[in-house]
């Protein structure tokens, strides 16, 4: 069995927790790692596991629903919806989104904030060695 997808929330990230949850879920949906029809965890489960208030996760789910990425139905939970045809990413775009979502999750697991992640990506694009001064939090 493959490892289940995980969300990461970091207290020292200046991004509000609901936005951290929303952005990661949006990335996973856009990348196809969460295909249409996939059920998201119940609010209480995700909130308890992440140590967040139920309302915080509920806000993330509401914003995802407003963006048309998920749909909530009483008794059926919250499920990923099929994105609009004009919003479908290309194959390369989907792969990049998946890689980015993984990178962000792993970087948050290391305690890196947004600036450090961006700096590491810029360094990689520029061909500089990874882990240089000021590029990562490790």
């Amino acid at each position, binding site marked *: 069995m493959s490892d289940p997808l995980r969300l990461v*929330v970091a207290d020292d990230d200046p991004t509000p927790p609901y936005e951290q949850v929303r952005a990661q879920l949006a990335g996973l949906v856009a990348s196809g790692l969460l295909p249409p029809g996939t059920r998201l965890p*119940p609010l209480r489960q995700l909130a308890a596991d992440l140590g967040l208030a139920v309302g915080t996760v509920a806000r993330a789910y509401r914003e995802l629903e407003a963006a048309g990425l998920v749909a909530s139905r009483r008794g059926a939970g919250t499920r990923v919806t099929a994105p609009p045809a004009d919003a479908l990413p290309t194959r390369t775009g989907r792969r990049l989104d998946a890689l980015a979502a993984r990178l962000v999750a792993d970087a948050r697991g290391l305690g890196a904030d947004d600036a450090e992640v961006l700096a590491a990506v810029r360094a990689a694009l520029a061909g500089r060695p990874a882990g240089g001064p000021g590029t990562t939090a490790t």
Partner: protein
Amino acid sequence: MLGLVLLLPVGVLAVVLAVSLALRPAAREALPGADHPLVRRAARRTGACRWAGLALGAVAALVVASAGTLGRGPLLAPAVLGLGVVLGVLVGELAVRPRHGRVRSASLAVRRARDLVPRPTGLAVGVATALLLALLVVTTAVASPDDLGRTGRALAGSCTPTSSWSRTPWPGAFYSAPLAAAVLVGTGAAAAVLRRVAARPVVGGDGALDAADAVLRRRAGSALTAAVGVLVTAPLAGVLAVAAPVAAGHECPTPAFRGLTAALVLGLPVAVGLLAWCLAVLLVPGDTRRRVRVPA
């Protein structure tokens, strides 16, 4: 004959319970990462609370068994025992505290309460519950008042216009109403706690202990299933044991009533065997479907 009817269930109970208790510990799914402090603490807390609930339920069941009138006490005692276990599981789950650090992660896998119910035991308990409720409907429908006018406590009839007969105790409304209420309350409480087991935070909180967390949840789920099993099958066996001799004493039974009597007699060892199995699961809770092989 009556002695055999009473001794046979006790023998079945003892044999099935002994065999189950001998086999279950070896067959039970292992707890991965049992040496990890967080896993050890969670296992110890949930186990201790479950045993405390069982002990509390047993004491309360003894009190109820001796307090009820005309056999109502022993009939309701198993429900009290089951509710004690349900309470113990609930307190144990509330005692599982997540370790929330600066960076926290959560799996996107959906945890469902029904996945925590062990399949064969859960199916058997569901069937037993349906059979008990159906049996109570039938016994209530054919019951009569006893000689002191207590509703639904006797089986009575008249085979000729000049004679009538009446036998007690019969599981009519006098017994079936409080019993059905106790079963519904116990089952509802167990279902609510099962949902709580599914929703509680994971042990550890970083994904490394997810396998151990799942095993602990399944143990709680099987303990709740077994608790419902005890609170259903014990009164089912009791109702069958009491109703079978009374039904056999019907002075002019119809073919349908003869069939009912045969079903009561044949159902008794099955109910007792299931009760013994549920007791074994209650004492050694856990899943046996997927044993985790831990490399040496």
